[in-house]
């Protein structure tokens, strides 16, 4: 029998250049185990649904990972869950919201989180401890806007915005020598 080969692709991804907003919601238990799946999803979503370069897809992967890890570790009790919402507005921006439901012990307010971020950003890099680099650097530097709000149930919503008309998307294939990151 003659060998037959073929490739069948699934339906085309939805590009964020249609005229409708796209919203994707995910809930995950507060276990770090689930984050590899969220990272994979983010990477593929950004690669398939936007015209961002691969570098930006990886950056978003880190941003979402850090937002979720922060929500799980600092904003959640064990055996709770977090909500992740991706919102794409054509020709404008991508927003990512991560909502946690608070900690019964040692709860932290949005204002305190913002103060911690600010303090970390002001600290000499050599004097930073183990934690704090996620929101203060990875999230803050790779997004255009970072907002943190308290919710009525004692949790927080952390929302980042990345503008789609950012000119840096076109310059990202340049050298990545240390100190030459283009943000």
């Amino acid at each position, binding site marked *: 029998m003659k060998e037959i080969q073929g490739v069948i692709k699934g339906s085309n991804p939805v590009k964020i250049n249609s005229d409708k907003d796209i919203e994707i919601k995910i809930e995950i238990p507060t276990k*770090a*185990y689930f*984050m*590899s799946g969220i*990272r994979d999803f983010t990477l593929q979503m950004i690669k398939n649904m936007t015209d961002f370069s691969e*570098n930006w897809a*990886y*950056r978003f*992967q*880190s941003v979402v*990972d*850090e937002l979720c*890890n922060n929500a*799980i*570790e600092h904003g959640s009790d064990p055996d709770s869950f977090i909500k992740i919402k991706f919102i794409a507005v054509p020709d404008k921006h991508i927003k990512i919201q991560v909502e946690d439901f608070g900690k019964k012990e040692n709860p932290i307010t949005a204002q305190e989180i913002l103060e911690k971020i600010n303090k970390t950003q002001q600290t000499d*890099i*050599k004097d*930073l*401890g*183990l*934690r*704090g*680099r*996620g929101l203060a*650097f*990875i999230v803050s*530097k*790779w997004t255009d806007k970072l907002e943190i709000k308290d919710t009525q149930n004692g949790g927080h919503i952390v929302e980042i915005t990345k503008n789609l008309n950012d000119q840096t998307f076109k310059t990202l294939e340049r050298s*990545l020598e*240390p*100190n030459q*990151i283009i*943000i």
Partner: protein
Amino acid sequence: MAEIKYTFSELLVTGKTNPIKLIALEGILDESNADDFAPKVYEVIEQMPEQTSVILDLEKLSYMNSKSIGYIADYFNKVTAKGGKIVIAKPARNVKETLCVVGLDQMIPFTQTLEEAKLQA
């Protein structure tokens, strides 16, 4: 599920008098495994003689989160306190970007090859 494979070995470099420890990583370092991996490196650092330098070979590391980077900064403090140096060799592009955005390049030199890393260690 995130998995990290690690190899700890000694490097013999002609012309170098100080010992060099090579730590090669393969896989992913994230929130689910960073705390389990770090003590293994701390043990190596604790047991190595004064003046020992450490090369972190990150060529096969495909992802690293901020907590893992925090641990590297802490390894740096511990190794330099013993008179050694830390060099990061061959990081993948996305890993290098993450290391740079948190400012680790201001503390630790990065090299494109293992040979360069040996010279700097």
